[in-house]
Structure formats: structure tokens, C-alpha cells
């Protein structure tokens, strides 16, 4: 059995659970961007000057915000999916123990889980993109590429977080992750306002963090103004993060399960 086929089984197990409630997840995936865009874009956007659009690269605030929210959604979904559910499968429900009594290996579990999260985030991103289109925000058919980029953002975070979760003996560490990693990234990655608003030192830090690169790519694709010189850099950042995350997740989960 190849690692790929075995990962497919792990993916399939998640599908079996998910398919009973898929409509709930998709309805939520639809509702969330609609609510956010209405509240933040129309509510706050209306307070901003409409004569001078230069602050947001020449587009209305809601257009600028939408792709940022899509990217943040990818990160947040990945965070939720790779903390408690993974901890459950390691410790409380012992799913991995059961899987590892079969020919399935740790690598197949890691790849299968990440592929599953990629699928979940991809489907949510596709819905998000439809909502953006309905709000008249997408500028070109190439915006569809925002979906795989969202999957990349999600799996990069997920891989690193699975690596973290595999080292945890209880869920105390998760609130620290939410508070000190996910929330700051959510707020300071050029999602809600341009980084140029920040002091230089903070800008430099924001540049070094992953969600910023994801936001740049997604926004460029959706608004059709991708900076082609910077894009490979953003992409490379996320790919390296994914690669490092997978290696660490595999190593940490292997250690954890060996006992």
C-alpha cells in the first residue's frame, strides 16, 4: 500500500463523518462572509471617504477587505481543525492508535489529515469567492486561483499546528495559540487595514509572518492587481512553511504515538 493510497483512507474516514452534516458546514461557510462583508464593508466602509480611494489601492474598502477575510478564514479554519480534533484523535478518542494498529503509518495520517483540511478549506474558499463575486468584488476569472492559494495558506498553518498539537498533553496550550498567534495575525496581516499604517518596526514583523503573504496573493488575484515580482516570494514563503510543517508534524506525531 502506497502512502498516497493510505492517506486516501484517512481522508475518506473524515469524509464519512462530514457527509452527514456537510450542508451545515457549507451554510455556515456562506453565512459568515455575507455577515462579515455586510457589517464591516458596508457598515464601516460607508463611514470612510468615497472620494479618495487611494488608501486601499484605489478600490472601495469592502473590495479591499473581502480577499483579506477570505485568507483569514483559511487560517482560522485550519487552526480549529488542527487543534481540538487532532488532539481528540491522539488522546481522547484514540483514533490514531487504532489506525496505527493497521498497516497505516504516521506519514499517511499526516498527509491524509492535511489533504482533508485542504478539501474543507478549498470548499469554504470557493463559497467565499462566490459571495465576493455576488458583492461585485472579484475583478477577473483568475480570481479562481484564490481557492488553491487559500488551501495552501490553510495547510501551511495546519501542518505547523498539527506539529504543535502532537507535543501537547492537554488543551491548555491551545488558548495561548489562539490568543498570541492566531488573533494577532488575524488583525495585523494587512487584513483589515494596510500595513503602511503601522510603525516601521511592526511593519517589518508583519512582513515576516505567514498570513500577510497569503493575503497579498489572494487580494492580488481577486482584485486582478497581483504584484508579479513579489508573488513568487509570497508563494515560496507559504510552500516552505508547508514543507517544514509537514516534516515537523510527521516527526512529532511519530514520537508521540511511539510511547
Amino acid at each position, binding site marked *: 500500500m502506497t502512502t498516497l493510497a*493510505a492517506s486516501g483512507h484517512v481522508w475518506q474516514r473524515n469524509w464519512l463523518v462530514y457527509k452527514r452534516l456537510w450542508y451545515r458546514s457549507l451554510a455556515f461557510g456562506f453565512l459568515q462572509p455575507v455577515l462579515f462583508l455586510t457589517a464591516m464593508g458596508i457598515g464601516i466602509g460607508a463611514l470612510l471617504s468615497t472620494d479618495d480611494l487611494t488608501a486601499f489601492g484605489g478600490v472601495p474598502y469592502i473590495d479591499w477587505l473581502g480577499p483579506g477575510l477570505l485568507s483569514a478564514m483559511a487560517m482560522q479554519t485550519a487552526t480549529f481543525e488542527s487543534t481540538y480534533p487532532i488532539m481528540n484523535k491522539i488522546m481522547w478518542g484514540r483514533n490514531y*492508535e487504532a489506525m496505527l494498529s493497521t*498497516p497505516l503509518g504516521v506519514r499517511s495520517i499526516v498527509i491524509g489529515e492535511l489533504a482533508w483540511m485542504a478539501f474543507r478549506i478549498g470548499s469554504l474558499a470557493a463559497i467565499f469567492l462566490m459571495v465576493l463575486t455576488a458583492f461585485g468584488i472579484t475583478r477577473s476569472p483568475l480570481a479562481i486561483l484564490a481557492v488553491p492559494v487559500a488551501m495552501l495558506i490553510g495547510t501551511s498553518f495546519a501542518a505547523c499546528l498539527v506539529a504543535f498539537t502532537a507535543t501537547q498533553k492537554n488543551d491548555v496550550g491551545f488558548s495561548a495559540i489562539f490568543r498570541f498567534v492566531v488573533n494577532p495575525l488575524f488583525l495585523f496581516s494587512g487584513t483589515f487595514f494596510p500595513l503602511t499604517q503601522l510603525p516601521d518596526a511592526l511593519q517589518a514583523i508583519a512582513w515576516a509572518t505567514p498570513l500577510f503573504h497569503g493575503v497579498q496573493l489572494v487580494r492580488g488575484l481577486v482584485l486582478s492587481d497581483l504584484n508579479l515580482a513579489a508573488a513568487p516570494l509570497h508563494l515560496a514563503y507559504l510552500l516552505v512553511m508547508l514543507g517544514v510543517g509537514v516534516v515537523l508534524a510527521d516527526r512529532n506525531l511519530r514520537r508521540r504515538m*511511539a*510511547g
Partner: protein
Amino acid sequence: MSSQPSLVHARGLTKRYANGFTAVDGVDFDVRPGKAFGFLGPNGAGKTSTMRMIACSSPVTEGTLSVIGMDPRTQAREIKAKLGVVPQIDNLDTELSVRENLEMYARYFDIPREVASKRTDELLEFVQLDERAKDRVEPLSGGMKRRLTIARALINDPDLVILDEPTTGLDPQARHLLWERLYQLKRRGATLIITTHYMDEAEQLCDHLVVMDKAKIVAEGSPRQLIDDHATREVLELRFTDATRAALNGKLDGLADRIEELPDRHLLYTDNGEHTLEQVNQRQIPIESALVRRASMEDVFLRLTGRSLVE
């Protein structure tokens, strides 16, 4: 018997955990095909640690171990393909139905769907859960969950089934139902490794036993042989009032092969309990109650370790 190749062969098998604790300390044993092999020992003896090494879920620290003729260090995947494992703590998939638990597990073994579906039907019937096939796992009773776990362990038609404390925590009725299923399995020629701290389970299910205590194997043989070697045919259990007990000093001497003094009673090891009881009465020692019974694995364990199996 010894000419047959062993399914599990261990020499000097040792498990030391990261914290330096030695849970299994140089044990030797051989599991023959078609037999039920038991590990009897109290909590903390190292049974689960041994099982986990055999199942390739926990690396061997030292010593030789071969499972189905293969080396767990290098051929874990091949070994796992031929094993059925019933862990001490249930790890059924609570998000799936009873049926899905078996079918999904079959996928992990790469068993084709049609074969998996057919085997699932057979196994659900075998463990008498066919009527619960569509139910979720959570509402099942402890005994049903255990039976489902056993069915799951058989999905790949394993050469060897490892059952870690299969009936611990079950009520007597559920235990007997489970034993009965395990007998059936034995009759079909399956090789079983069973760990338990119940002497009755060990005596009833196992053809061959090792007694484990504090990380070591302290005795080995068939249940009958162990009782013959380490206990007498019968045991006379005597209870005295505290006053009599205090005044006993040596009055029982010479009445039995061996006398074991427990907090609440005296055990007299003898080949004829009734006869010994007569002798006690002749010495005019006032008895509160007396019981003659056959010697059991509990007595063997007491003899070997000076402690009871279940504290």
C-alpha cells in the same frame, strides 16, 4: 509441540520508557500456533507494555522479538497486516456507526470493498451485533463495545489476535458472553494472546500461561501444570475469631504442606481438605468458618509473589 515454529518468539525482551522505568525486564516466551497464550498478572506487571511491543506500537528497548517470523523493528507494516489487536482501552471510532467502524477499518488494511462488506456482515453476526449495525458506538454497553472491538480485530483475517484484558470492567453476564465468543474463535483454530488479571479467565481460556509480576515472568506452564507445581490439590480456608487467632501460636503447624496467613483467613495447602479439617477439629481449635476448595491460579500467584492478584 516444541517442533512447531512459534508465532511470537521473545528472548530477553525489555521495555524501558523515556522516564527510565523498566516495565518489561528481560522476558522469554514462545507462542505456538493454534493455542491461547495467557499473560496473567496484577496491574502494573508489564502486560500491556509487552502486548504493545508485539503489536509493533511500541519500540522494543532490548532483546529479541520476532512476530509471525518477522522483525518488528523493520517489518512493522507487514506484521500489522497479519495481526488483530484488541487494546486494553477501547478505541472505536465514536463518530462512525457500528457497521462503518468495521468497513472503514477494513479500508485501512486495503481490503477491497466487496470483501469488506461481506466480512462485516459475518463478523457482526459472529459477535451478535447485527441488529445494531446502523447504531452509533457511544450508546452501546461496555460488553457490546468490547465485542465490536473483537470483530474489528478479525476484519483482516489475522494470523494472531492480541487481546489486552478483554473482559476487565464487564459484568459477569457480559464476560461469559465474551468468553463464549473467544471459545468459538479458539475452536476455529485462531492463535490468541490474552492478558488478564482474572485467574478464572486465565484458567478457562488459556492453554498456556505465563505469570507476570513486576516486569518479570515468574512461572510458566498450562494452568493445570502451574497449579500442580506451585500449589496442592486442595485448599482449606479457615477463619477464626480475633481471640483464637491471637492465641494460635503454632497450633496449626504440621497440618498442611504450607500455611498462608492472610489478613482475614488462613489458607492450608493440602491434598485432602476434609481430612485436614478433621485434624484441625481433633486439635480442638475453635473455627468460625471452614471451606474446602480446589487450588486455583490465585493460590499459584500467592505462592509465587506473596501477594494476591486483585488487591
